[in-house]
């Protein structure tokens, strides 16, 4: 499959957005301007971009505690995202959800999720729903290597395979669950082999190669849309930051700075940039222009978020229940 130049530019732009959004958070967090927990996606951008590059607006995703990248890649408005992280009323969740619960129903973003493994059953349900409603919508379900040990993984993949649901299970294997490395949380290396337990195809790929992620997902999405059922895709990658902002020294309690540096050399964004320039898909200049433009979008988002109002106190008591007749 030959990927169009436009698509490559799109993937590059998406990754750049994911990266820059998080770098803003690093800075804002350090200056105490965003409250709460922030689990950053830096280093894993190729996964979100490559997967979501295959999705339509009415397709669904379920996300995780490390969800900013997924949400950005699915196309969510940066201003309202940033506003949500600031706890502002104009944010996606009226400031009531924050980083771990960003959702945008209009784009099929069924929410980041604070529960590791919590998104998998929800993805199964969204896939089932599409099947029941007779649409060709697919659901991409993001989760981590450590979440693959939660019982919800097992029950969800079994249900999806049994009913041939249009769900693509994307395991982002960044080799750690907080401080616990993969060898300490499971006795296997390739999580994709778990697909055999459900009679589902599974594949392991380089999660820092956005083209590989895009193409592998494309095949899985195709299968899903024509009713051939789910696929498990394991993307090997690495997170550059600590588990969350505030994790001392980028996680030095449990990993070696050398590993981080080694993985930085495999930066998915630079990698695509190099290839594109080499293969004459884009000029350095053009890519720099994109970077600048994204930078500007981030400036705007932060300005927007800062100026926005906090929710009024009464709103705390609203939205516990849907107002009937709505």
């Amino acid at each position: 499959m030959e990927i169009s130049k436009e698509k490559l530019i799109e993937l590059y732009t998406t990754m750049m957005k994911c990266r820059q959004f998080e770098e803003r958070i690093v800075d804002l967090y350090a200056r105490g301007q965003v409250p709460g927990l922030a689990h950053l996606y830096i280093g894993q951008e190729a996964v979100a971009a490559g997967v979501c590059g295959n999705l339509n607006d009415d397709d669904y995703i379920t996300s995780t505690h490390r969800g900013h990248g997924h949400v950005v890649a699915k196309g969510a408005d940066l201003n309202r995202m940033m506003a949500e992280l600031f706890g502002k009323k104009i944010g996606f969740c009226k400031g009531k959800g924050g980083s771990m619960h960003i959702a945008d129903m209009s784009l099929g973003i069924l929410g980041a999720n604070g529960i590791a493994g919590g998104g998998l059953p929800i993805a199964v349900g969204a896939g089932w729903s599409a099947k029941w409603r007779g649409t060709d919508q697919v659901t991409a379900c993001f989760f981590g290597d450590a979440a693959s040990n939660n019982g919800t993984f097992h029950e969800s993949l079994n249900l999806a395979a049994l009913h041939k649901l249009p769900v693509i299970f994307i395991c982002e294997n960044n080799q750690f669950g907080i401080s616990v490395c993969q060898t300490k949380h499971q006795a296997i290396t390739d999580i994709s082999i778990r697909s055999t337990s459900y009679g589902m195809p599974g594949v392991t790929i380089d999660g820092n190669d956005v083209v590989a992620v895009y193409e592998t997902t494309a095949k899985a999405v195709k299968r899903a849309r024509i009713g051939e059922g789910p696929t498990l895709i394991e993307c090997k990658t690495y997170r550059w930051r600590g588990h969350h902002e505030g994790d001392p020294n980028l996680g030095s309690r449990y990993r070696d700075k050398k590993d981080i540096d080694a993985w930085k050399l495999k930066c998915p964004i630079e990698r695509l940039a190099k290839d594109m320039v080499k293969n004459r898909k884009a000029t350095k200049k053009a890519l720099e222009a994109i970077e600048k433009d994204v930078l500007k979008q981030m400036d705007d988002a932060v300005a927007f978020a800062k100026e926005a109002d906090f929710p009024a106190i009464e709103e705390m008591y609203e939205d516990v229940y849907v107002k009937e007749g709505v």
Partner: protein
Amino acid sequence: MRELSYADAINEALKMAMKEDERVVLLGEDIGCYGGIFQVTKGLQQEFGEDRVVDTPISEAGFVGGCVGAALTGMRPVAELMFIDFSTACMDAIFNQMAKMHYMFGGQGSVPMVVRMNVGAGRCAAAQHSQSFHSIFMHMPGLYVAIPSTPYDAKGLMLESIRNNNPVIFVEHKKLYIEKGPVPEESYTVPFGKADIKREGKDVTIVATHAMVGRSLKAAEKLAKEGIEVEIVDPRTLVPLDKETIFESVKKTGRLLVADEDYKTCGIAAEIAALAAEEIIQYLKAPVARVCSPDTPVPFSPQLEQVYIPEVKDLVPAVQNLMQYS
């Protein structure tokens, strides 16, 4: 009027809801050809097919979580848990996903689903198949909780539960399944938050749930012979709770007994007693009384279980005691 059993009344409601709304689907273990362990879904798979009445694997977390995803994306699923005891296997889906999404997402999306389950001892099924702990769902904000005590209420509350745009925990009572009562043929709903006075009386108010309603009626007959007139208020939904009707009755009688089969400590009876002590204590002529299951697991031996179950034997002396005060 035509009489139906409690189980058949729920069955009829499910059938009507499925006929009037394609989005309604049923999921659960052995609800298909088996008709559900208590025959509540009898015949529905034959009528609506295996796609809309789904026999699930033993994966409560998977399929109840799946219902959350389906409800978020346009379906109206009704899940059956074979016993309330097994809700422990999908508590994350209920407490952290289903109950919170509408709020966490700032009012975006809704989760119009019903989780059916049953409570009640009396079948010598021991500690893991006889419990009543429905109060924990009353405790968790974001859930509606329906507790029908008659076939009429069962049908009307089920139709309301399915049409309602909020997640509903629908708590049935095992011992009532075969109890018959008048049920209109047509479709009707019992509104949430409207208690029903099952018996009028001037001396003592019994707020009774589920099977405790029938047991209270029996006790009331006995007590009437002693000249004690008991008023029996059935809340019908625990959330929303019809405080007004309960309070009016207590203001009239000055004596409150709460009869519920859940464990006593921190149960429904505790909440209703607390509300009275908080808001209408000045009307109380006597201490508040609670008749509940004792704070022990449910014993197997029929001899013990018969004593365990809160019954007429417990209600009569409790009411008589309240009459000591004036």
